[in-house]
C-alpha cells in the first residue's frame, strides 16, 4: 500500500488550492476525485464577501465585524490574515487583478451588478463602480448571452450601455456554446472577421463587453489583439456553463499542480476510512474494485450538496459521503428547512461539517472526530455563500489554510527539512 504525506479528496477550487500549496511545499500529494470539479462551472472570480447583508465595498474592513457576527462561519475558523494571505498566494499563480481592499462591481450576463474582490485580468475592465459608457457585443447563435438584455439592465442601473448582436457562427460546431466561440477566437482568422464585423459600430463606447469567450488556449493573446484593434479596453462577462474562464482557471491550477509533482486520479470515489483517532487509510472505489490508500493527512474538499460531498436522503438524513463525518446544522425532521423567498435565510443552507480552529471535523458534542483530517471548501458548515457572495473566498482561504496546517505539522515539517 502506498503512503502519501497528504491525500486531497476533490478537484474543485478548495482541493486544487490545498493540493497545489502542499505539493509546492514539498509534500507527496495524491488527489482523488470522482471527476473534474466545479471550477469548470464557476464564473472564475474570487468573491470573498459581497453582502453582509448590505453590499460590501471594502471586504478587508468588513471581515472582522462579519466574523464577530458569524462565529461559526468558515472565515471565523481561518481568520482575516489567512484570507488575505491566500489571495496573495493565488494572485502569484494566476493572471488576476483586484484585492481584498475594495470590491469591484462587475456585471453578470443578465446585466445585474455584483461585487467581487479578485477577478481574471480579462474582466478587470468590467468594473462599473464609476459608471461608464460601453458597447455590449453578443453573437446571435450564442444562447447564453443576450446583449440587448444585458445593456437594458445596465441602463436601468445608470450605466450607459448599447447592444450589438453579430452573426458569425463558428464553423464546424454542432452546438455553438461558449467553448466553441472561445476555440474559434484562438484563431486569427475568426478574430479578423469579428473585428471587421464591428467596424464603425462601436461609436463613442469607452469599453467593449463580450461574453467570456475570448480565447481558450490563447486567451491573453486574444484580449491583447482585440484591445489593440478595437482601440479601447475590452472585458469579458461570465456566462452559463461551460464557463470558459472557469475552465481556464482549472487548467492553470491543474498544470501547476502536475508540475509541482502531485498525482491526480479521476473516477476514484472515497467511500470510507480505516483507523481510530487517526485515519490510517482510505477505502477508495476505483472502477469495480475497492482499494486502500494510506496517507499521513487527509484534506476533504468534496463540495456540498450540489457537488455530492454531502447528501440528503428521502428521510431528510444528511450524510457526508466520503468519510461519513457527522453533518452539523441540518434541521431535524419536522423543523423548517427552506423559506419561500429565495433570498431569505434558509435553515438548510448552513448545514455542513463543523470544524475547529484547525479545520478538524467535530462531532455533535464538539469533539474532534479525526486528528489528521482537515475539511475545506463548500463541505464546511456555517456559511450561506449565495447570499454572502463568499463561496470562492471560502474555498480558497480554507484550502490554503488546510495545506498550511499540514505543512506546519511537526512530522511533515521534519520530513521536508
Amino acid at each position, binding site marked *: *500500500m*502506498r503512503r502519501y504525506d497528504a491525500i486531497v479528496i476533490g478537484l474543485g477550487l478548495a482541493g486544487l488550492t490545498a493540493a497545489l500549496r502542499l505539493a509546492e511545499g514539498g509534500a507527496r500529494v*495524491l488527489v482523488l*476525485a*470522482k*471527476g*473534474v*470539479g*466545479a471550477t*469548470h*462551472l464557476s464564473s472564475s472570480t474570487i468573491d470573498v464577501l459581497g453582502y453582509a447583508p448590505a453590499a460590501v465595498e471594502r471586504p478587508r474592513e468588513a471581515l472582522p465585524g462579519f466574523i464577530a457576527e458569524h462565529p461559526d462561519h468558515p472565515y471565523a475558523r481561518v481568520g482575516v490574515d489567512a484570507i488575505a494571505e491566500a489571495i496573495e498566494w493565488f494572485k502569484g499563480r494566476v493572471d488576476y487583478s483586484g484585492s481584498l481592499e475594495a470590491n469591484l462591481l462587475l456585471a453578470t450576463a443578465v446585466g445585474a451588478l455584483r461585487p467581487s474582490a479578485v477577478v481574471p485580468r480579462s474582466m478587470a475592465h468590467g468594473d462599473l463602480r464609476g459608471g461608464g459608457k460601453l458597447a455590449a457585443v453578443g453573437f446571435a447563435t450564442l444562447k447564453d448571452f443576450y446583449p440587448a438584455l444585458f445593456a437594458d439592465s445596465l441602463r436601468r442601473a445608470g450605466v450607459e450601455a448599447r447592444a450589438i448582436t453579430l452573426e458569425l457562427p463558428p464553423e*464546424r*460546431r*454542432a*452546438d455553438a*456554446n461558449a*467553448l466553441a466561440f472561445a*476555440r474559434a477566437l484562438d484563431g486569427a482568422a475568426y478574430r479578423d472577421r469579428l473585428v471587421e464585423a464591428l467596424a464603425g459600430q462601436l461609436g463613442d463606447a469607452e469599453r467593449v463587453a463580450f461574453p467570456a469567450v475570448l480565447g481558450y488556449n490563447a486567451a491573453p493573446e486574444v484580449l491583447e489583439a482585440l484591445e489593440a484593434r478595437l482601440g479601447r479596453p475590452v472585458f469579458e462577462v461570465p456566462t452559463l*456553463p*461551460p464557463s470558459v474562464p472557469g*475552465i481556464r482557471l482549472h487548467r492553470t491550477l491543474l498544470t501547476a499542480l*502536475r508540475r509541482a509533482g502531485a*498525482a*491526480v*486520479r*479521476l*473516477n*476514484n*470515489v472515497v*467511500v470510507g476510512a480505516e483507523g481510530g483517532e487517526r485515519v490510517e487509510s482510505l477505502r477508495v*472505489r*476505483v*472502477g*469495480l*474494485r475497492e482499494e486502500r490508500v494510506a496517507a499521513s493527512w487527509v484534506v476533504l474538499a468534496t463540495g456540498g450538496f450540489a*457537488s*455530492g460531498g454531502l447528501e440528503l436522503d428521502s428521510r431528510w438524513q444528511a450524510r457526508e459521503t466520503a468519510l461519513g463525518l457527522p453533518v452539523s446544522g441540518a434541521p431535524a425532521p419536522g423543523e423548517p428547512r427552506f423559506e419561500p423567498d429565495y433570498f431569505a435565510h434558509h435553515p438548510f443552507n448552513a448545514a455542513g461539517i463543523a470544524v475547529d480552529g484547525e479545520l478538524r471535523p467535530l462531532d455533535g458534542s464538539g469533539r474532534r472526530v479525526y486528528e489528521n483530517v482537515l475539511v475545506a471548501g463548500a463541505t464546511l458548515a456555517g456559511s450561506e455563500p449565495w447570499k454572502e457572495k463568499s463561496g470562492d473566498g471560502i474555498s480558497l482561504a480554507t484550502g490554503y489554510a488546510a495545506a498550511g496546517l499540514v505543512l506546519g505539522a511537526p512530522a511533515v515539517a521534519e520530513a521536508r527539512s
Partner: protein
Amino acid sequence: MDHDDVLGPLLMRESLDHCVKCTICETYCPVSNVTPLFPGPKYVGPQAERFRTADEPSPDASLDYCSSCGICTQVCPHGVHIAEINTQARAKLRQRTGFPLRDRIIARPTLAGRLGTPVAPLANWALANRPLRLLAEKLLGLHHRAPMPKFAGSTFQRWARKHASPAAARRVAFFHGCGANYYEPSLAKMTVALLEHNGVGVEIPKQGCCGLPLQSNGLFDDARKYVHKLAEALVPYARAGMDIVGTSTSCTLMLKREALEILGMEDDELLRTVSPRVYDISEYLLAMHDRGELDTDFRPVPETVTYHAPCQQQGHGIGKPALELMALVPELEVVESVASCCGVAGTYGLKREKYQIAMDVGVSLFEQVADTRSDEVVCDSETCRWQIEHATGVKSVHPVEILHRASGLG
C-alpha cells in the same frame, strides 16, 4: 460486489439520473470538439437515453460518431456512466442499421493475425500498397491512409512455447493480447525479460482476443463469447492465486471493468474470478516498486520523450504509473502529453468516414511531439502508438520498452 454506489454496474443506466447537465463532458469530448457530426456525450448520452425505451428505435444516428474513448465518464463529477451508456446504445442502433463487413473484419484481430502471419511479407506489402489500399477503401470503407501495423511473421505464442521462466517465489500470468502476439512480439518478450529480471516468474497462457473491438463495433454477442473464452483460458491462473498482468491497456481494462459493465457479464463466474486479478503492467510494476521489489538501478536513457497516457489507460483510474516509473530513469526527460486522446480509439480512426476526425482529434498531441523534438513517444496502447507514428513520423514505444532498456536488458 456491492451496489451502493453510482459507479456500480447495476446502476449504470440509472446513473443518468445523476446528470445535472453541467457540460463538463462536452468540454472534454475530443470528437465533438472537431466535428459537428457528433453533437457531444451529453446530448447522445444522458439526454437521449431517456428517449430510448426497450421497444423503440434509438432516436439518433449521430451516436455512431462516438469513438468510445471514455473521457466523458472519466471527467463526470457525478459518476454518470456516459461512455458506457453510449456504447450500449450504439450497439442497439447497429442492430437496427446493420453491421458492415468492414466492421466485422476489423473487430476480429485474431482472424487478421492468423491469416496474415504465415504470409507476413506479402501481407505487409499489400498493406503498404497504395492502389490496393485505395481498392480496400472503395470495397470495404477502410481508409487508405489509416495506420496499419506490420505482421511480425512469427507470433509471441510460438516463442513462448519454447520459453521456460526460471523458478521464482512470485509468479504472474502474462496477458499479452493480440497486438503483441501478431505485431509486436518484441514488446511481449521485453515484458517477460523485465519481470524475470525483477524476480517474477512469468506464465504465458494460450489466449485469444478480449472482445474489445467487437464491443466497440456493437457486436456484443460475439464480444461476450470472446471474453468468456479468454476468461476460461486465464481462470486456472487466477484460481492458483496468480495476478494477471497485461501490456495492452485497453484489453486489461476490458477484463477489469468494461466487459462486466458494458457487456453486462456480471453473472459470468469465470470472468468474475479473473477480473479482480488483472493489472496493467505499469500499475503492477509501480506496486512492486512501492514494496521495494523493483530493481531501480537503472542506466541512463539520455532522451527526451513525450508520454501520452491513452484514454483507455486513464479509464483504469490509476493515475499515470508509467510517469512515476520513468521518473526513476536517469537522464530521461519526460514531457507529459497535454492531449487527452490521439484520435484513433482502436478501430475508429481506420474507417473511411472517421479517419480525418481521428487525425483532427490528435492534432494537439502531434504538435506537442513536434514542438518538444521528442526522440520517442511513450504510450501504453498499441493502436495509439501506430496512430502517433503515422501522424508524427516519430517512433512510439510502450513504457516497458524504456524500462527494459534502462534495466540494461536490451
